[in-house]
């Protein structure tokens, strides 16, 4: 009974995994020769990766980026969900409008962001300049460019967190909230003791966004190309360049495997939390 499923799983998942592991142990490149050339290097790529300052710089940018985007998305998504939940009239319309960014392809978000902060004709650049908040070139400065790409990601994916959180909020029985209100609990107290413990979905949202943020690519590629001064060059961009620009496929596989390991660790962290709270069987 299980055989077909096992065969499919092996073909689409296990074999590629072993192939990538094999790639990481070889100097596999498209440069030179007449096809893909490879020779066995053992742990050579791994040694090179752990001593490559570019890889460490990529991971540092990745960690800062990860904390900033996921943190902001959770906070803003939660607030948005709470606000929508309280809306009595036009709730569906408000929800539809809020969800729009999520349906735009990330590469378009990158292009859109780039246009909006363009110093020549960008609307946001103009507003910031005219209001005296920021007169510099947004994508031309290390900090401002980093903030810009973080905000582009937050704009696109906060609605996902809001949607998942809202699903949790809807499941809270109104009688419980009303009883708490009658007992004199303030809004913040109700939020802390009833609402937040009931929306376990936010941890799932956190898990999904975390997995996504670790392989974030499109928006930065479009908006800054990793610059200026490598300020926005997170690890997926470096992996892409190693594989498809420099054609060092073995080295790229090594970076990819490390990303996979980190992704598994992060996923385990969140599933651990869910299990601890009895939300995962």
């Amino acid at each position, binding site marked *: 009974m299980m055989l077909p499923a096992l065969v499919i799983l092996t073909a689409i998942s296990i074999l590629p995994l072993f192939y990538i592991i094999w790639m990481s142990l070889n100097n596999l490149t*498209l440069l030179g020769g007449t096809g893909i050339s490879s020779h066995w290097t053992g742990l050579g790529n791994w040694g090179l990766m752990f001593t490559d300052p570019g890889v460490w710089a990529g991971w540092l940018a990745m960690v800062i980026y990860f904390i900033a985007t996921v943190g902001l998305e959770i906070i803003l998504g939660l607030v948005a969900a709470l606000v929508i939940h309280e809306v009595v009239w036009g709730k569906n319309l408000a929800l539809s409008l809020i969800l729009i960014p999520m349906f735009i392809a990330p590469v378009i978000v990158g292009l859109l962001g780039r246009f909006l902060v363009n110093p*020549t004709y960008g609307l946001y650049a103009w507003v910031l300049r005219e209001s005296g908040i920021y007169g510099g070139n947004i994508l031309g400065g*290390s900090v401002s460019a980093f903030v810009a790409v973080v905000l582009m990601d937050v704009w696109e994916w906060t609605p996902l967190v809001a949607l998942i959180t809202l699903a949790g909020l809807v499941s809270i029985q109104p009688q419980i909230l009303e009883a708490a209100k009658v007992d004199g609990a303030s809004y913040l107290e109700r939020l802390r003791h009833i609402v937040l413990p009931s929306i376990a979905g936010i941890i799932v949202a956190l898990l999904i966004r975390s997995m996504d943020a670790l392989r974030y690519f499109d928006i930065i590629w479009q908006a*800054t190309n990793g*610059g*200026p001064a490598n300020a926005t060059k997170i690890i997926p961009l470096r992996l892409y360049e190693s594989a498809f620009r420099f*054609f060092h496929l073995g080295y790229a596989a090594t970076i990819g495997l490390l990303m996979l390991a980190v992704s598994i660790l992060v996923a385990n962290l969140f599933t651990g939390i869910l299990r601890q709270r009895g939300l995962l069987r």
Partner: protein
Amino acid sequence: MTRRGFLRITGAGLAGASLPWLAGCGGGSGSSGASAGGREWKRFSGMTINFISENTAPTSAIAANLTPFKKLTGISVTIQQLELTSLAQRVALDFGSHSGEYQVIYADPYQVMAPLHDRFTDLKEFMEDSSLPSVPKGTGDFIPTQLDAAGHFGDRLLALPYDAPTMIWCYRKDLFEKYHNRMQEDLGFDPIPSDSSTWEQYYRIAKWFNDNQDDVPYGAGHQAKQHDALMCDFSNVLWAYGGDYFEKGQKVGKLGTTDPGPSTLDSPEAIEAAKLYKKLIEIAHPGSTSWDWNDLGEAFGAEECAMCPEWHEFAAAWEVGSLKGNIGYARLPKGPARSANHYGGTGIAVNRYASEDQQKAAWLFVVWATSPEAQLMDLKSSVGGGTPTRTSVYQMPEVKHNKNPLTNMPNIVTAPAVLEAWEPQNIGLRPKIPSWNQCDTIIYSQVSQMLTAGKNPEDAMRDAKIEIDQAVKGVPSAI
């Protein structure tokens, strides 16, 4: 001597074997004797070939007018246009799998041809095959520096020059004329770009515009985003100051090599060039550090700066807009060594993994698409064509007469500047080496750090040299 050899030598190939399609597409240059070559063009009738190209104006023009080729050969051509990085990736994967899906390839000399040079067919094989049409007017009709840079890798001819974007000095002629006397008085030299203009003078002109007028916000704009564009922009200054990426850099750029030797980016000339470049960007439009060539083209067209070094093909867009007739084009300023004008042209090549018949059909397309008549068609295209890569096209009466006044070929307005830029002593050629993509990334990352993160020019050049030396040895790194 064979008929083909005779035709090639006398330059009469066009009239003989080559282009019976001329009458059909209205090339109008009076070529005749077309019927002589009809059968050799029809050999692969009914076949479909795929052409993968960067999304450039010449390919858009070709795509908009494929009917003459279809009529001539009976071959259908499917054209896929992509951004250059994506193209390089697709071509590499096609080669890696030996699938031969793309028979005709836009072979950027640096990002595609150099790293994958073994995967292209030597075009001499087709040129020596008497059953196939010859190159109209012979390969000698191509501008020599372009034939080498875009076509050769070592002693093999892998592509025929197809487009020829080259960086030149684009400036607001109206503003330079308006402020000419004041600038000359204040600066002590004639500011109008000329053969004697230097990068130091360019800097002073830019600064003068910043400080003394309100027509444009800034004097100069540059393409200094962390991107291939930054390497292109920086290289003009590097070469002008006598620096280069490798010891025999221009030869490496012309013919290509797999072993360029150690990098020379730590030379005093390269460091001087880096210092000047940093100085230029400090007073340039602040948007420069986030602009690639497209952004700069838009900014200049939107009157954000009075001058910029830019690819000459942007003239096609500017000369049909509000700035029509108000832009001047000149060779780039010189440094202590020379004037260097970055050449970014590309040839089209044939995939060696395609079947023999597909390769021959692809050759027919290569010959047709680079013929003088196709280039004239490109030039006149309403979708904004490219610039000819053949000397004979510049001699055609209708092209000559279009230079002044400008009518329906906006790109030709830059002809005097680019023809001078393509002279061997003025052309700037980046290295044609297999690891160029990695080296390119190292260069623009280091220069970006110098421009936006306070890294000093000496350190940027020395670090770039160290990393390039490793890349050339084939050592992978995540830059």
